[in-house]
């Protein structure tokens, strides 16, 4: 058993580190400029360090699948606080374009998407539809001259729409079709008068999601991806990601470190809270779950690296992390006592975490959808009748 990547990768890590050191931070020291980020990303792609699964023809670096290399690159980028090249919505649209896009669409969109010149958000969910995509109502009609689509309706839970240039949407293009058909996948430029973006404020006061309203918004006729009325199939495209879950553990690990720090700072009955038997034992119990998360992730990653079957944990990870985050947030609450009611105080971060552990269970599918997936894919239970279409939509939304 070996928990590291092993000596054979040391040289690669050194290479990556040297590359980063010579490119980041940028010479002018401006860590936030798009031009600097872009230059770094372009160089990293050139070097084979970013967008490794995308063909060179479309601006990627076209490297063989190697999760260990990908993980090392990710670790080194994180360590140097260098741009990761990852933009949430962009990672969702590129596989679709690669599989279903016309050559023109690929040429036009993929490369600028990789460099961040185009930023995408996803328009799948609608008010009143949620994960039940079959019931969506936003519609697109061909203009009388047949040159463009006219879009009307609204989308919800679009992450970071206010920072995006484009949206990829599921819209209803065949009004007569049955409920589960007649949906197409459309690319729309957000920077036009027919589009209004309204932030959704969360209970934490943060604004991560938006509603996007289309009021006779337009997009050229050739912005439809895949076959008209079959947008359902199109959404199922995914690349085999070089993702191990190891980077996904970053936040629970750092949340736990913060928790330990908090419990050492805060006092209870005249001593650090961490010395209180109740708090101490719960912290240890939480650590047991955290260790389960960490080492199960190493096992899943190892199975992936060595191309072996049997990884059921990856499917459970999100729900497990959600529960764990809630448990950590509750222990922090118990320790901060009075401060827990004060959003202007020193413990705001923990109040946010108390709430955000709930939003985690919602973003990208509620915990119940996770449970449905685990029931079917991990436990092999027969598909529920009532959720047959749920599973289809999940596939679409994943």
């Amino acid at each position, binding site marked *: 058993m070996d928990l590291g990547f092993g000596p054979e990768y040391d040289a690669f890590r050194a290479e990556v580190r040297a590359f980063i050191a010579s490119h980041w931070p940028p010479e002018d020291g401006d860590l936030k400029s798009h031009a600097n980020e872009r230059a770094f990303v372009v160089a990293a792609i050139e070097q084979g360090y970013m967008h490794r699964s995308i063909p060179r023809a479309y601006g990627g670096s076209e490297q063989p699948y190697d999760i260990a290399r990908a993980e090392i690159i990710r670790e080194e980028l994180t360590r140097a606080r260098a741009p990761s090249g990852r933009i949430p919505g962009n990672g969702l649209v590129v596989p679709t374009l690669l599989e279903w896009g016309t050559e023109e669409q690929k040429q036009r969109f993929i490369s600028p998407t990789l460099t961040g010149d185009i930023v995408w958000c996803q328009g799948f969910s609608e008010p009143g539809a949620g994960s*039940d995509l079959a019931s969506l109502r936003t519609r697109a009609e061909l203009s009388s001259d047949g040159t463009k689509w006219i879009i009307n309706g609204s989308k919800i839970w679009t992450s970071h729409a206010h920072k995006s240039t484009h949206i990829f949407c599921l819209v209803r293009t065949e009004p007569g079709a049955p409920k589960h058909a007649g949906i197409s996948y459309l690319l729309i430029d957000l920077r036009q008068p027919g589009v209004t973006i309204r932030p*959704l404020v969360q*209970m934490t006061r943060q604004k991560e999601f938006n509603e996007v309203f289309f009021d006779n918004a337009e997009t050229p006729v050739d912005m439809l991806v895949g076959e008209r009325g079959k947008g359902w199939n199109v959404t199922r495209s995914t690349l085999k990601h070089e993702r191990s879950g190891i980077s996904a553990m970053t936040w629970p690990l750092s949340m736990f470190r913060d928790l330990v720090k908090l419990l050492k700072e*805060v*006092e209870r009955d005249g001593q650090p809270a961490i010395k209180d038997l109740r708090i101490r034992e719960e912290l240890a119990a939480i650590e047991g779950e955290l260790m389960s998360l960490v080492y199960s992730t190493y096992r899943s990653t190892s199975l992936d690296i060595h191309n072996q079957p049997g990884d059921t944990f990856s499917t459970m990870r999100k729900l497990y992390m959600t529960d764990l985050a809630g448990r950590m947030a509750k222990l922090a609450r118990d320790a901060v006592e*009075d401060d827990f009611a004060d959003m202007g105080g020193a413990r705001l971060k923990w109040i946010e975490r108390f709430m955000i552990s709930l939003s985690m269970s919602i973003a990208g599918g509620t915990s119940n959808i996770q449970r449905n997936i685990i029931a079917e894919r991990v436990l092999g239970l027969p598909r529920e009748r009532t959720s047959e279409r749920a599973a289809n939509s999940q596939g679409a939304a994943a």
Partner: protein
Amino acid sequence: MNFLLSPEQHALVDSVSGLLRDRCDALHVHQVFDTPGEAAFDAALWSALSELGVPAIMVPEAHGGLGLELIDLAIVSEALGRAAAPVPFLGHALAALAISLGGSEEQKERWLPALASGEKIATVAFGESPGRWAPDEWTLLGETLTGTKTMVPNAKEADLIVVGLGTGALAVVEKDASFTVARLDVADRTRPLDTVTFTDASAELLANGTVAAPRVFDAAAVLLAADAFGGADHCVNMSVEYAKIREQYGQPIAAFQGLRYQLVAMALATEPARGLYWFAAHAWDALPEKARHAAGQAKAHLAETYLQVTRDTVEAHGGIGFTWEHDTHIYMKRAMLDWAWLGTPSRHRQRAADLAGW
């Protein structure tokens, strides 16, 4: 055996609930909550509640009150909790109770009529963070007061503040005394809290304050428990109704057994706690040897339950339940106040264990 509300008590709750239905629907609460600047209460609503007699409930009839019991105050607290009403009820009711129980006849006559009518607003200053809330933990001393009290409800608007002292006594500080008030950026904007710093503030001791203080502390625990019950019960109802209406995959989500069981778990946590808070109020009124223990148990259990139920409510609603526009976050933030104010469940359980002689 008659562990039920009387017709008069039903009438009292109905009148308050009716007013809240008319004047404090969810939209209204959002408007108050979202008013820019520091959190503030709804003066018109408080005035209407005052006309119904809410601030007079436990004030003796001799001083302009209704001379009712804690159970009456608690069921009103439940109704206010259910509506998440943005009014200075908590501090005011406790201050009036403190003076009713601890004031000399002269002190009562001086202060209570204006409190009973709602003409003046009062509050209590108990907390000395972190976690120090009980009379035996208070530290302020002296003829004039110097020191800080935390999480004081509506101190900024109050005409008088009943302050807990290091001797376990109570003193009244009036508006024009020497203290400063800083409003917290509190989670629960329906019930603003202030940090109050006294500097040689003139204060008048309540004649029987040391006797009154622990009783007021216990009453506070009961009122918070009642508020928590009202809020939690509302959240359960809200989640159940949403499940009946909201459709997914061609049917109401109430058809999904997984969600049904989650709703059952919420109801199972909430409904039985009604009896607990009723008993705590009844014990305060009629069973002195059980009152302290029951108050602590009620506060601990209800505060914990309420906060968890608001979390479950978010989950039952999906994404929409996590937004600022939805009602849930207002209830969660009230639950946070009910949880933290007067001390955490853990502290109240510790106290209850001590009182049980364990």
